[in-house]
């Protein structure tokens, strides 16, 4: 299972034609304490770049954009009660949604880990 990144600080974990999406630890650190995450309903579809979710930190609200086009097949309901998971484990338990891909080729445009590390350095 490979992981790709967007310049907007999302990670995309690829598992066949489904991806899990979250925000990177770097992004979570920049946002500060996350107090609420607004996730899309299962069944909703997004085009790449659409506003998909909103992260509210103590500081401000930030939009999360769909890194690829797809249909929401799962949303992390644990974040409702424990939004701090986004800060504590951004890369794992703090995942946002799972998307069923509509265009797998979009993954090719995302960054790999080394490219993302360079992006934030």
């Amino acid at each position, binding site marked *: 299972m490979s992981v790709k990144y967007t310049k*907007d*600080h*999302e990670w995309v974990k690829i598992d066949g034609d489904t991806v899990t999406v979250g*925000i990177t630890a770097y*992004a979570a650190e*920049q*946002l*500060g*304490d996350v*107090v*609420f995450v*607004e996730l899309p309903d299962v069944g909703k579809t997004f085009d790449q770049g659409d506003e998909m979710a*909103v*992260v*509210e930190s*103590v*500081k*401000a*609200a*930030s*939009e*999360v*954009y769909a890194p690829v086009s797809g249909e929401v097949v799962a949303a992390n309901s644990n974040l409702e009660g424990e939004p701090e998971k986004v800060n504590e484990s951004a890369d794992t338990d703090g995942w946002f949604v799972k998307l069923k891909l509509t265009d797998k080729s979009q993954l090719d445009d995302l960054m790999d880990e080394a490219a993302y590390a360079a992006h934030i350095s």
Partner: protein
Amino acid sequence: MPATGPEFMTDTLQTPLFDLHVELGAKMTPFAGYDMPLQYQGIMAEHNHTRDAAGLFDVSHMGQAHYTGDEAALEKLITADLSALKPGEQKYTLLLNDEGGIRDDLMVSRPFGDDGLFLVVNAATKGADFAHIASNTAGKGELRLIEDRALIALQGPKAADAFGALVPSAAKMIFMQCGVFDLDGSDIYVSRSGYTGEDGFEISIPADKAAEIARKILADDRVKPIGLGARDSLRLESGLCLYGHDMNEETTPVEATLMWAIAKPRRERLDFPGAARVMQMFADKPARKRVGFTMAGAPAREGAEIVKDGEIIGVVTSGGFGPTVGGPVGMAYIDREHAVADTDIEIVLRGKARPAKVTKMPFVQQRYYRGE
């Protein structure tokens, strides 16, 4: 998601504590023309630490001044009764325009015995405030800007123990008292007040001793440095207005529910700026007024519209997550008929109306020290 990293600007001013903030690992942010610490370890942790123990804030960006001479000339511009302000006392007051709109809110105090008044005004308004005061008191009084001093605030339930260990006599004051004290040979101007709803002190210190004094206060295990982020969430939970957001030149003390800041003799004499209009509005009741609100889920932020039964009835002026409350809190101006505690309202966030409730402030009980 756009990166929200600190934004360093070259033309921003620095307070005398800038190097200390950087050394302490602060994330800096431009605020009112100054490069200020937004946070050190994190807003939530800093907020909670201030409520549980004690937090040290750099508020050196605020304007300090010493006014001497004819006090009636200054009094005409504000809402306090200066003849009733005794040496060692401080008052919260308002600088109004001729229509009774709020130019600024400020602290006026008498820490120097009978040698005039000490003024502390907001950072963003200090230039305009001091120009306004100086021009309107010209020939009668003298306004001396104090630019060689830093201003720090020590706030929280352990503030008195921590500060009392350094300046025992200062910790004997009660809420809204003030005075000049000695700390290691420096004159410090101290008031027992603040902007968090907690007990604490605001302390004016010589700029060239600021870092040394701040380090000394921070050496106490109970004290941690606190940034502007937590300062905002602390004041919001305590129902304290932020100038330029929760009131401005377009709002009167009636609408801002700050009539308590107009001294009774001033109301009777109708001799504060805009008094006729303000007292008429007070008698007639204003069309809109400032209220608190609470809600679940995502916090409403400044600018969000408030609706009821499909009609727009108001706008959010401050909003965010209240760590002590454990949920979103905010202030809004809404039509008077709905400005009643426990009224159900809706706030529009990202195009969706979300349920909220008009809620009595403060959201967190203030814990000022008023004596044993």
